């Protein structure tokens, strides 16, 4: 579907300029690390500011040079850039900038002032970008490892927290196994086809069911499922979401999701485009299980981060359902869903960060009790976010689910669509519980949230985006349609 041409069009401004997002990020990461070492001590917020500058510059440079409407292959076919890559990378920049904005105060208050934090976030983003533009199994692996290793370190960033260390170890051990699994699967694919190039793979992998091919794809799918946190490879998700500092959870839940999306898009829908029957079946099973386990598991949670972790598992199920259709409208639906989910989840975790203070982690769902009396504005925004995630109009989450269901029905999967809407009714319950605590319960002794006007403004803009994209979704929908032709 991505156009299987081996060579792209003519390069407009030299190959390097098309890779400007990655280049600018890599340079920025190195520079910021140096600046932090030499000037960072004593100057609070310097690295954070520099990071924001770097992201802004990255957006500007990418907008100027990095966007194409054609498909180009760079670096001997290892690297591909197309309109989808441009869209996802711009999204990555914006999402990370928002995440950094939300995290600043939180990190400051907890004494996590190390500039490495931002550098690791930048390298993780670089990993995501490499994944987005990967056109070879090697590039895929390179991007994935860059992303994962940065994330492991970030999860353990709060050195004194036992629970964070535990989460990081779990994440690392399971992640390492997943990487091994991926490499094993890739080696089988290489053994069968003799190529690492995804374009060539998509042309070669066309033969009918072949045991070795099936096993190879199964390994690759397992590694992808791990990255998505899809059942039965979801064990790390609740622990990491809960154990990691909230700002890192925010990053994993949002920015990193773009990476997972790119991973499945390049590896399966492009690389394995010749044998969709094999992997769509697997994805379907993963999706059904994720929807069930995620939605049922979330009901039992009392910790909001853990609840959102299970919700992430359930939402991964929705994205996988989109891919499981094996057709373009399904991939578009998955992209729309991912974008809507990232926008909404950014604000949801931003809200948790907003409500946390020094010495107080706003982690229990019960901490939301009476928020409507303590702070009507924040409560109204959280209400919008929860209903959006539950898929109720007039918020963007509704359109995301609508497209997935439409793609499923278009592919003839009536029962799968019915199943998906029914479990989302179960899912509605735990989002409603947050609203219930905020609106129906008395605040008790819980304090009024801090003012923080700047953060409030960004949260407000973010929530306004969730609502506006819900009222007038056409722009988002048509962009997503355009970038996946």
């Amino acid at each position, binding site marked *: 579907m991505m156009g299987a041409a081996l060579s792209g069009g003519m390069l407009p401004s030299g190959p390097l300029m098309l890779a400007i997002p990655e280049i600018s990020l890599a340079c920025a990461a190195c520079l910021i690390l140096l600046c932090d070492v030499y000037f960072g001590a004593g100057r609070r917020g310097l690295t954070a500011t520099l990071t924001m500058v770097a992201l802004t510059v990255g957006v500007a440079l990418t907008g100027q040079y990095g966007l194409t409407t054609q498909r180009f292959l760079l670096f001997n076919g290892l690297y591909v850039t197309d309109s989808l890559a441009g869209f996802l990378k711009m999204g990555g920049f914006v999402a990370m900038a928002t995440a950094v904005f939300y995290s600043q105060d939180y990190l400051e208050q907890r004494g996590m002032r190390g500039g490495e934090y931002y550098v690791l976030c930048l390298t993780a983003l670089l990993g995501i970008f490499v994944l987005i533009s990967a056109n070879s199994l090697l590039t895929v692996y390179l991007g994935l490892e860059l992303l994962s290793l940065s994330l492991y370190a970030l999860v353990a960033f709060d050195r004194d927290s036992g629970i964070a260390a535990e989460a990081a170890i779990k994440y690392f051990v399971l992640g390492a196994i997943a990487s091994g699994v991926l490499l094993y699967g890739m080696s089988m694919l290489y053994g069968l086809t003799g190529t690492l190039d995804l374009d060539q793979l998509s042309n070669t992998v066309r033969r009918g069911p072949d045991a070795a091919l099936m096993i190879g794809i199964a390994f690759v799918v397992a590694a992808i499922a791990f990255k998505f946190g899809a059942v039965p490879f979801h064990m790390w998700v609740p622990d990491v979401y809960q154990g990691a500092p909230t700002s890192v959870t925010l990053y994993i839940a949002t920015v990193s999701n773009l990476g997972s999306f790119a991973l499945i898009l390049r590896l399966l829908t492009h690389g394995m485009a010749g044998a969709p029957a094999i992997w769509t079946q697997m994805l379907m099973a993963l999706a059904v299980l994720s929807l069930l386990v995620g939605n049922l598991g979330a009901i039992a949670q009392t910790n909001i981060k853990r609840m959102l972790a299970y919700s992430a598992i359930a939402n991964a199920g929705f994205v996988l359902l989109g891919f499981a259709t094996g057709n373009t409208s399904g991939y578009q639906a998955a992209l729309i869903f991912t974008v809507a989910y990232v926008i909404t989840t950014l604000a949801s975790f931003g809200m948790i960060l907003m409500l946390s203070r020094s010495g107080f982690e706003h982690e229990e769902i019960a901490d939301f009790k009476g928020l409507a009396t303590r702070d009507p504005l924040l409560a109204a925004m959280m209400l919008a976010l929860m209903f959006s995630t539950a898929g109720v109009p007039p918020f963007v989450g509704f359109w995301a689910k609508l497209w997935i269901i439409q793609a499923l029905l278009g592919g003839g999967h009536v029962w799968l669509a019915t199943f998906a809407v029914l479990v989302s009714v179960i899912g509605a*319950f735990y989002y*409603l519980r947050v609203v219930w605590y905020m609106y129906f319960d008395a605040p008790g002794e819980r304090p009024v949230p801090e003012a923080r006007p700047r953060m409030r403004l960004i949260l407000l803009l973010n929530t306004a985006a969730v609502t506006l994209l819900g009222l007038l979704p056409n722009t988002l929908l048509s962009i997503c349609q355009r970038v996946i032709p």
Partner: protein
Amino acid sequence: MQQLGLLSVVIWLPIAGGLVTLGFGDQRARAARWAALVSSLLTLAACVPLYAGFADGTAKFQFIERLAWIPALRSQYYLGVDGISLPLILLTAFMTVPVIIAGWSEIDKRPAQYYAAFLIMEGLMIGVFSALDSLLFYFFWEAMLIPMFVIIGVWGGPRRVYATLKFFLYTFLGSVLMLVALIYLYLKTGDYSIAAMQQLPLTLTEQRWIFIAFLLAFAVKVPMWPVHTWLPDAHVEAPTGGSVILAAIMLKMGGYGLLRFSLPITPDASHELDWLMVALSLIAIVYIAFVALVQQDMKKLVAYSSIAHMGFVTLGAFLVFYIMAATGSAQGAVNGLDGALVQMISHGLISGALFLCIGVMYGRLHTREISAYGGVINVMPRFGAFMVLFALANSGLPGTSGFIGEFLVILASFKASFWFALLAASILVVGAAYNLWLVKRVIFGEVANPQVAKMQDLNPREFLVLGVLALAVLLLGIWPAPMLNMMEASVQHLLQQILTSKLPGAA
């Protein structure tokens, strides 16, 4: 592509008013109250040209607005009204005003949020009735759940959380299946407009499944037996205004959906399954009326009586096929449909008024137990008169609007089968029983306890609200012709749609 027009005003004006009200905040409750009242009155005023400009005698949609909304989904911002939806829109705008006034002194907990929720509800409900694009319809239909969820949960009674979660999840479950059906239809027509779906030929199997999906959504809203159990809980726990809106308007959405979607889109499945619908309606009419008889709580009694009355709506709508089979007379079928529609409007007025009456008493004595009252007429003569009027209207007394709807439906059911008519008419007896018994226990008799003796009669505000509703009930009962004329052409058109088979090859 038509420009934005009157219908958009009626939808978005209350929503904007709601946001303004919200902006005043709970600290400036007075300003918020006035902002809410002004918005609801302006909305009602905007309905006047809608009523005046509506041309009777055509089934075509009027006041059409058609703008590009989501070209990516071929869905349009497409509004319009016909004789079926206009009365419901007028009812919505009309009933919101008393709701705002009823909360004037009663609500002191987060008043701005209270009024804002009702105004936003109003806009969304009018949106449901005027949407001619099914995706837009669904958009309003679902969005409406959010303010109602908050209204019951924040301002409701002791078990409000249970009630509101039950309400939300029940209705959400019903509507997501409708969404699947709508998308399925869209994939066949390539267009979300309701008219295209109504013209689409469908096999019987498809129609059956779509009918069931629609039925789940609409039956929960109506509510039909046996999916009615959320209603008594929601009603009892909701604040007065919430009960009024629930009974007067939200239940009508189920009836409206059956008339606008189920019957015209899946006529053959409706024909095939009409025995089921008629059976469920009769069960609701007869059985639920007896359930109402034994209630101890006034709100629960009115809630169950609502379910029984809505049974007439579904009965009137689905008798069509029996009547056509038995007599072949289109007039009988039209009577049934007319009755269903009049019943919706009339029930909206009467049940809303009854809930307001209960709210008046609850505001003074803080209990809804029937046994706590007695002899209210001795201390509140004016209130007593209103209460008796509405209770009699609720039991279908000639001269009130309650009579017209029930009479038309029973008339139609005689044409279908004597036994249907007998069963349906039995509600006149049972209905009179529970209404009169309620009046006897609450209004008449000796003053039951010292607290009742201290109750104050209606204040001018309450008098105004109940007086206007009483006038409306009587007016519609004595002179229903304007409304019947308004509906006539649309009902004829609907009947044609229902009786035209959509099976491939039938046309």
